[in-house]
């Protein structure tokens, strides 16, 4: 799994590629926690290039969303592939997050 980040005003777009599984979930958790603790609690995770998300990954999303909300921010998601969308539906997670079809425009610096 690879993680990148871009900024669109006060929103941080976290770009994840590959598998979010029991092995890689902690890396994603650490990234989301460090962003929130650094004051960047408005997060959008771009899932376009994610193969799948295991239950460990869903746990990370849930915990990170709670942390972001406590910091007056929010965790949202964008660009779910049909396969990842199916996992969100199976886990009944579609109602827990704002899910966007496209990513916010990144700021030009």
């Amino acid at each position, binding site marked *: 799994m690879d993680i990148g980040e871009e900024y669109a005003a006060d929103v941080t777009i976290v770009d994840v590629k590959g*598998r979010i599984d029991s*092995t890689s979930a902690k890396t994603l958790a650490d990234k989301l926690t460090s962003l929130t603790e650094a004051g960047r609690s408005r997060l959008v995770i771009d899932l376009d290039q994610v193969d799948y998300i295991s239950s460990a990954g*869903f746990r990370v999303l849930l915990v990170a969303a709670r942390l972001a909300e406590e910091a007056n921010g929010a965790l949202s998601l964008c660009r779910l592939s049909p*396969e990842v969308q199916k996992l969100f539906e*199976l*886990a009944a997670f579609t109602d*827990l997050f704002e899910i966007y079809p496209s990513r916010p425009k990144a700021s030009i610096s």
Partner: protein
Amino acid sequence: MPGSRRKPSGLHVTGAKHGNSVTFRIANCTTEIAKIAEGVNGFGVNHGLSKSVLNAVNLALDEVLNNTINYGYTDNKRHEIMVSLSLEPGELVAEIEDDGIAFDPLAASAPNLLGGLHERELGGIGVHFVRSLMDDIKYVRKGETNRLRLSKRLVTQENPDGHRRRVRG
């Protein structure tokens, strides 16, 4: 109690290929699971399997192996887990064999999927994924061994929905 158990280190994954099947042996250490995912992808590329089939099987194996490694053993000893993949007519079969405590994923209760962001519980989602994504699951406890057989139907141009073909006569 994650993190409190000493895990064996310096372990290796071994694989044996026999035409349409391959067997991997890993130790009960979560870092080994990624090697299985690479093995599944390699097997899939060699046999021209679709990414959706490989993703589903990889996700199911991740859930099963993670569960076995984290909750299946009551000692700190090294245990071997065998994972085999085989290509059978119309399906990809993954079989997992371990000597952990008995656990039948088919008998696990359904997860509670209710509640908002702050109420939601996550127990049972992994098993729920396995049961939902696989087309057939068989579990047997034989002696001190768990044997789990997961089957995923292959999607081909002639069989776009992954349904079993009807055989006449």
